[in-house]
C-alpha cells in the first residue's frame, strides 16, 4: 500500500524487554498505566507583527516508562517547539503565549519556575539536539562538560566526576576515552560530538530522553552508529525516549509508537507497526509515498503531495491538510475533524454524532493512549468513507478544495 520499505513488520517490540514490566505488576490499577510524561492540550502561540503563529495548537500525547515515541512532521509542523515546550525549554515571554499542561511522573511541570525545572533537567529528563556543535560549549573540554552535570546532580567530586566521564565516553563507544576527556569539541568529528552529547545526556541516568533530530546532521553510516547506540542505551537504562524527526525510516525502525504532526496538531498516532501497515490519515499515507522506495525498479514516479505546508498565521477553518489532500470533501474545508479512534468511529453513525464531540472540548482521544490508533480525518484511508471520498474526487478530477488530482497522486 505504501511505498516506503514495503517489507517485514518491524521487530522492535518483539526484541525489546517488556517495557516497565515490573512497575506494572507491582502497582495495581490505574497507576500502573500512568504515563511518565503526559502532555495535555499543549498550545504555543507566538505573537508576531504579522499575526499569531500557532506553532503548537492543542497537542495531547503521552510517553510511558521505557517506551520510545516518535514524533514525525515536516518543517513547520510544530514538532520541535512542542518537544521543547514539553521539556520546559520554551517559557512564557512577551510574545509567547502558552497553555495546556505537561505532567512528568504525575507532577505538573509546565508551571514550574526555571530553578525548579533545572533540577529535573539532567537528572530526570535529558535532551540531545540536532547539531552537536552548538549544544556543546566550544571553549570547555569534553570532560568538564560531562563532569559539570555529574557534580551538580549527583554531587560527585572532581576526581570521581572525571572517572565517571571516562566511563561514560567508553560506554558510548568513543575510542581512547582518557584522551577524549581532555579534548575540545572542535577536535572531534560530528559523530564523536554526538556521542559526547549522548554521554552528557545519559550521565545522570535520566528516565526520559528527548532526541530532537538526533541524526539529521550526520552521514548515514554515522547515523546507523548513533541510532544503534541510542537503542542500546535505551534498552540498558530502561529509559523512555521521544525522538523528534522528519525521517520516516528512522521512526519506523526505532520507535514503539508514532505521533504524526501537521500544522501544530497531532493528526495521527498509533503503534509503529500499525501506523506503517495501515495509515489512516491521508497526510501520513502521502508522506510515506513521497519517500523514494528502496525496492522495485528505479525511475519510479514519486507520488507527490501538492502544495506546501500550511500558513500557521491563518489556518483554514477545517482540516489543515485539506488543500493538499486527495480525499478532501466539502466537510473537510469547514469542519476540523476531531482526533478519534477506529472504535469511536464504529460507535458513531457515519457523518453524524461524531461531529458532536469537537476537538476543543474535553478531548475524547489522547494521542498517548496505549495501543489506540487515532487520527484526525473525516474520510480516513482504507475505510469505506475514505475510499468513497477518493473515488468521488478522482471522478470529478479535483478535490473539494479545488486541487486537481493527478494520476500519479492517487
Amino acid at each position, binding site marked *: 500500500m505504501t511505498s516506503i*520499505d*514495503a*517489507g*517485514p*513488520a*518491524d*521487530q*522492535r517490540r518483539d*526484541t525489546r524487554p517488556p517495557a516497565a514490566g515490573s512497575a506494572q505488576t507491582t502497582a495495581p490499577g490505574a497507576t500502573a498505566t500512568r504515563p511518565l510524561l503526559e502532555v495535555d492540550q499543549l498550545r504555543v502561540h507566538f505573537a508576531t507583527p504579522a499575526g499569531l503563529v500557532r506553532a503548537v495548537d492543542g497537542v495531547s500525547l503521552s510517553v510511558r516508562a521505557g517506551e520510545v515515541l516518535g514524533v514525525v512532521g*515536516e*518543517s513547520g509542523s510544530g514538532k520541535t517547539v512542542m518537544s521543547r515546550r514539553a521539556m520546559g525549554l520554551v517559557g512564557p515571554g512577551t510574545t509567547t503565549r502558552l497553555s495546556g499542561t505537561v505532567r512528568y511522573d504525575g507532577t505538573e511541570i509546565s508551571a514550574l519556575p526555571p530553578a525548579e525545572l533545572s533540577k529535573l533537567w539532567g537528572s530526570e529528563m535529558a535532551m540531545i539536539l540536532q547539531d552537536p556543535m552548538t549544544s556543546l560549549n566550544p571553549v570547555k573540554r569534553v570532560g568538564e562538560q560531562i563532569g559539570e552535570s555529574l557534580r551538580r546532580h549527583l554531587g560527585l567530586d572532581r576526581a570521581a566526576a572525571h572517572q565517571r566521564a571516562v566511563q561514560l565516553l567508553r560506554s558510548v*563507544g*568513543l*575510542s581512547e576515552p582518557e584522551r577524549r576527556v581532555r579534548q575540545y569539541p572542535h577536535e572531534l*568529528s560530528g*559523530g*564523536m560530538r554526538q556521542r559526547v552529547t549522548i554521554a552528557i545526556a545519559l550521565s545522570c541516568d535520566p528516565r526520559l530522553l528527548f532526541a530532537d533530530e538526533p541524526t539529521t546532521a550526520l*552521514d*548515514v*553510516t*554515522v*547515523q*546507523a*552508529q*548513533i*541510532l*544503534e*547506540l541510542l*537503542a*542500546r542505551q535505551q534498552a540498558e537504562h530502561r529509559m523512555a525516549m521521544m525522538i523528534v524527526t*522528519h*525521517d*520516516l*525510516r*528512522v521512526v*519506523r*525502525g*526505532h520507535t514503539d509508537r508514532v505521533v504524526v504532526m501537521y500544522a501544530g496538531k497531532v493528526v495521527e498516532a498509533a503503534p509503529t507497526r500499525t501506523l*506503517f501497515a495501515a495509515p489512516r490519515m491521508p497526510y501520513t499515507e*502521502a*508522506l510515506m509515498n*513521497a*519517500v*523514494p*522506495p*528502496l*525496492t522495485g*525498479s*528505479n*525511475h*519510479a*514516479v*514519486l*507520488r*507527490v*503531495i*501538492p502544495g*506546501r*505546508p500550511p500558513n500557521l498565521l491563518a489556518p483554514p477553518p477545517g482540516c489543515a491538510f485539506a488543500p493538499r489532500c486527495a480525499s478532501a470533501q466539502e466537510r473537510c474545508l469547514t469542519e476540523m475533524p476531531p482526533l478519534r479512534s477506529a472504535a469511536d468511529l464504529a460507535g458513531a453513525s457515519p457523518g453524524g454524532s461524531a461531529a458532536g464531540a469537537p476537538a476543543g472540548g474535553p478531548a475524547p482521544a489522547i494521542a498517548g493512549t496505549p495501543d489506540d490508533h487515532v487520527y484526525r480525518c473525516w474520510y480516513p484511508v482504507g475505510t469505506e468513507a475514505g475510499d468513497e471520498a477518493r473515488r468521488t474526487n478522482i471522478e470529478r478530477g479535483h478535490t473539494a478544495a479545488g486541487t486537481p488530482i493527478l494520476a*500519479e497522486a492517487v
Partner: protein
Amino acid sequence: MTDLVKDERQNKTGASSGPGGDPGASRHVQLRDADDVVLSVEDLVVEFGVGGGSTVHAVSGVSFDVRRGETLGLVGESGCGKSTTGRSIMQLPKPTSGSVRLHGDNLGGMPSGQMRRARRKLQMIFQDPISSLNPRRRIADIIAEPLRVWGSSPDARKAKVAETLEAVGLDPQLVADRRPHQFSGGQCQRISIARALVLEPEVLICDEPVSALDVSVQAQILNLLEEMKERYQLTMIFISHDLAVVRNISDRVAVMYLGKLCEIAPAVELFDRPRHHYSSLLLSSIPSADQDATTSAARLDRSGGEMPSPVSPPSGCRFRTRCPAATERCAVEEPLMRQVGDGHFVACHHPLEVAEVVASGAEGSVERSADGTPDGALRPVALEGV
C-alpha cells in the same frame, strides 16, 4: 525509456570486454568507448592546500563516463569528494589534474573563451535553493541572465524565460517580477532549474538538489527533474548522500569514498548486489524496519563510523581502516577497478561474493515471507551473520 537503458548496457559490455591487452583499458575498465558518451572524466584529481603546508586530497583519480540520456548517480558521505567532483567537471575550480571531455574535447585544455563556450552545454543545480539565487534581482532577470550573457535578443529572451518557467511548473505572469525571498525552498529550486535549462544544456549536474527540502517537496522536485530530463533530452549527474533518492533517479550509480570510486554499477544491481564492502555498509546503514539490521551494520564498521582525514588518507585501499575484510594486501596495493558483472565494476581486492549475497537475500525473505515483499535482498546476509 527502460528499453533504451537496457540496450545501452548490452552495447557497453560488448565494448569494454573487447581490448584486453590495452593498458589504458585495463586501468579504467569502467570507461566505455561508445559513440554516445557525452561526458568522460579521466583521472580527475583535485587537491587543496590548507594551512601549514598540508594538502587535502579531495578527489584522487576518479574516472567515469556518462552516455547520452543517462543519469549517473554519485553517492558517498560528506567529505568523500562527490561535490568537488561535480564542480571540477564544470572547471569551477579547474581540477589539479586529469581530463574532463565533453564529446571528446578536453575542457581543461581549452583557452578560456572557448572553454566558456563549450561549458554552456554543462549546467549545474546546487543544494541550497536560497543561496543559488541573487536576492537583489527579479526572477525574470535571474533566468534571462544566461541568455543575456550569450547575446540573444530581448524578445527571444522574454519568450524563452516564459517557456522555461512554465516548463518547471511556475506561472511566468505571477513569478517574473518577484524576488527570491518571496518564494519557498521548493519554488527557489524550480527557479534554479529553470535558470540551468534556459541555455538548453546537454548535461545537468545536480549537486544535492533536494537535500534542503522537506520530503513532500523533495518528491515534487525529483519528479520535475525526471520530466525535464525527458523534455530537454538531458544527461544527468546526480550527486547526493541520500541513497534512496539516488537509486530512484539514476540509471547507474557510482559510490565514492575518500576521493576514490569504489564501485560503479546499474542502480538496481548496485543496491541489490553490492560488491564493495563500503557500498554494502552504506546500504545496510539505511534505517530499516528491522532494527537488528541497523545494529549489525553499525557493529560491522570497525571504526565506529569515523572516516580518516583526507589530508593523510590510508595507503592502499582507502576503506581498509573500516573494512571487515581488510588484509595486508589492502594496505600495500591499491585495488584497481575491475569488472565483476554486467556493467558492474568494483575496486576491491576481496569483493563480496554474489552467491553469498543472493543466498542471504533468499533467507531474509523466507524469514519474513509472512509479511509479503522481501526487502531482505537489500542487505547481504553475509553482514547480518557477522
